[in-house]
């Protein structure tokens, strides 16, 4: 389908607060984004993409993303499962990633909730620019236009971004082997094991973003929508994520 016919649902509740920049990103590329409050949500029908933006949905008071995830489950949980099964892309940035993990859609092996985004090792909110190395970008709808090994500067801003998997480091390795690890935090020289502050949250294996097996559910802590215009030396920026998913939808549906 044509880009100008692609409808993107950007879902929000109280405390969601990165929705405008996500809206702008899709709008600039010619798609049709809509900001939809969960109270006004009726169906995913007619939408080809669902985005969960960053922020502090419902204050993140129980656990980051837990309240929004539970409200999504009770409002349109079944419809969302079919949406994912049909191959439509679902993306979550920052709080959105936390929500997708709380929904069990990421890593999404069909086993329910198998991961969590735990408090940063520094035990504090960290706002800093991070360098991400693309590990297996080709496997995901949101990143397939980024060449493998490419390094992008994408800002991070979160207090709970340490990705813990229920299987520990073995699960992380398995995830990487399955091509589901999209990005890792690295330093200026590209070193994956540079530690803090290059890895701002202490994520084991320096994982910054992942996708499900099928590659249509995507989540990451850093914010591509915040660096839409600022490309790296090869011209890749946050913009490429949005171009990727629109290209995927255009080719698939």
């Amino acid at each position, binding site marked *: 389908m044509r880009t100008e016919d692609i409808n993107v649902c950007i879902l929000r509740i*109280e*405390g969601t*607060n*990165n929705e*405008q*920049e996500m809206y*702008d990103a899709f709008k600039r590329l010619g798609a049709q984004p809509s900001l939809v*409050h969960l*109270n*006004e949500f009726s169906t995913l029908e007619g939408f080809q993409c669902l985005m969960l933006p*960053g*922020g*502090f949905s*419902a*204050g993140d*008071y129980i656990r980051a993303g837990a309240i929004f995830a539970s409200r999504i489950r009770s409002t349109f949980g079944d419809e969302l499962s079919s949406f994912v099964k049909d191959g439509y892309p679902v993306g979550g940035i920052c709080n959105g990633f936390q929500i997708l993990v709380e929904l069990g859609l990421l890593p999404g092996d069909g086993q329910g909730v198998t991961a969590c985004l735990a408090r940063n090792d520094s035990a*504090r*909110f*960290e*706002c*800093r*620019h*991070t*360098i991400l190395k693309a590990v297996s970008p080709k496997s995901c709808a949101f990143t397939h236009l980024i060449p493998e090994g490419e390094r992008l*500067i994408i*800002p991070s*801003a979160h207090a709970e971004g340490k990705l813990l998997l229920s299987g520990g480091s073995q699960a992380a390795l398995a995830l990487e082997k399955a091509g589901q690890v999209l990005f890792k935090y690295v*330093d*200026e020289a590209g070193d994956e094991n540079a530690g803090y*502050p*290059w890895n701002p949250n202490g994520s084991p294996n320096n994982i910054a973003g992942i996708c499900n097996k099928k590659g249509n559910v995507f989540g990451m802590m850093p*914010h591509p*929508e*915040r660096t*839409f215009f600022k490309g790296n030396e090869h011209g890749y920026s946050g913009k490429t994520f949005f171009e990727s998913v629109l290209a995927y939808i255009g080719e698939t549906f």
Partner: protein
Amino acid sequence: MAHVAEIDLNVPDAELARLSAETGTGLSVDELKTIRSYFAQEGRNPRDIELQALGQAWSEHCCYKSSKYYLKRYLFHLDAPQNLCVIKEDAGMVAFDDEHAYAVALESHNHPSAIEPYGGSATGIGGILRDVVCMGAQPIALVDPLFFAPPTTQRALVPKGVKHPKFIFSGVVDGIRDYGNRVGIPTVAGMTCFHPGYLGNCLVNVGCIGLVKRSDLIHSQVGGVGDLFVLAGGGTGRDGIHGVTFASKELADDSDTSSRSAVQVGDPITKEPLIHACLEANEKKLLTGLKDLGGGGLSCVVGEMALAGGFGARVDLDAVHLKEEGMEPWEIWVSESQERMMMSVRPEQLDEVLAIFKTWDVTAVVIGEVIAEKRLHIRWRGEEIYDMDLVFVTEGPMYQRPLKPVYRERIVPRYDEPDNYADTITALLRMPGIASKDWVIRQYDFEVRARTVAPSLTGRIARETHADAAIIQPLEGSKRGLAFTADVNPYLVALDPFWGAASAVDEAVRNIAAVGARAHSFADCLNFGNPEKPEKMWEVSQAIQGLAHVASKMGATFVSGNVSLYNEGPAGACPPTPTIMGIGMIEDVDTAVTVPFKQEGSTLYLVGATKDEMAASAYFRLRKIEGGDVPKVNPYLLSAAAGCLAELAGAEKIRSCHDISEGGLAVALAEMCLGSGIGADVRLTGTLRADVALFSESNTRWVCEVAPEHCPSFEEMLRSRSVPVQAIGRTDGTSLHIAYNGRELADMSADALYVIWQQPLWEIMG
């Protein structure tokens, strides 16, 4: 059982003083006598709710009774063509472009933060956001200037009833972080200043900037008779009772227990949808007026909105949604519970307004209506409990309090040059006022909304230095940006309130020019001691004149502000602190200049004149040297120099630029090195002694890095406008090398400078 009590004012004067204390209204005996004669004409005594309302309206915080005279005389008449609607309302409105305006608000939340740092600072953010939203503007940036006693203060020095500055500092930052990040407005600029004088009374100033289409600009006044008052947001509770009267007296050693209820409880997750809903209702043209509930709560908002429109109001107090049972009517009326906004709405548009708030899960209820008569009537449980003339309530007294000048004897200091300049530079970089504030800054989301094109930390990743000003590009499709800075040096103001205040404006203008922008507007938050003490009142009047001295020549004026007096506690008065928020405009954000050196082989220039103005300098404080002259400001030179730099930056003739402030030239050069890793070979010449040349804090100075091909035109422009400029060296290698009149003074690696400068606050705060 809640009830309304009559208060007998026909009692001896001594009784009146006791009555003021007992009711917590903070009214003076003279003010109570004025009230007594008003009620004599009415033929009755006031009820408690009426007296409480007057206490709120006539508090220093609400009616500026001590400062108004000086503000009117020196500041308020200054005007600039870009000003649209300034001083009069909760935020000043300034033209952004032909279609848009920006809103500026700056306030203090000092007393609550001293008692309860987390809640005090969080609700400070909440309050300043509402000040911007009530103009119909979308908040786009927060600015937080903070002032504490050093967090290393020994426990034994902390008086009874005072919380340790490390606890206060940490709690204040937590509060700003948790509120600002949750509502999703970037905290982009500010300052963190340490001075022992803030021990008993920290200062938490909060600024906010918003953007609105000019056609959506709304005012804090009702439209006409029959308009409904719709109260939206959180419930009204017993948090925040007597906030303004508490803020209008000195802190006491029992304030923690006696005034805890004056501190409000913040809830960003009620605020966030409240902002969306208010702005949506305004954009759909469903409101005739909008105002936030801040100091004085309902008691201030209803009367002020009605009177500003030329009308009165009738209120049904039972309609107000409450957080708790059993509140006295006067408590409901003066409560400063957070997250509340008042709208005036035509009856035919009420349903549509209520539907918007329902979607956002925000409570909104009708609590009254506009009437023609300029009086306010309140009914509660079927009875009228309040009936007063609105002009009488709202006008408030104005005082010209006695002044006592305090002129300090001029001391010519005698001191030797330091033995080792590298050690001195190291010690300066480690001073809490100069060292990196990234411990604070990184806890704030400074990039949410994705409009921050130049954040407050700038440079290579993981070795960023402080920016002079942060820049936001607020509109999709426009390269125009706004630059933000907050400045004041209380050490200087304490020595000389006039030149100290003037220097604060100079620094704001400097910071704005350094990033390539032009000063476009200012806001001031005047934090001073007890105005009933003549020497404190003199400081206020001097500082206001100092602000006017500089601002009157800048083509930008004070568009908004706040006066916070009575900043005194068990440990004495805080240093006089006129905080300045400067807002600059840059036509094309792509031409913005940042602090870190960009490449080797550039020429370095010192712009401006260095003088022997060492009083209160970081160097003198480090070495505990008293005396010397305070830096003065020549506003004409400042205007010319700042104009040149903005023009040169716009023409992309400046690679990097940094203003010279605390620590002088040597520290400015170090900060430019450490953010990039690029060094400099600096060879200064001059007639001053070397330490004066390196560490003087004379105003109106910058260091600029210029590409060799632009040097002739750079020099030519500054010289043609009589701005002193001197080539002082070039960027080179990876270390900072400084020589003066041929004498080698320091050679320090950029990597080492970064560590020296970055570590101190982390060592203290963990």
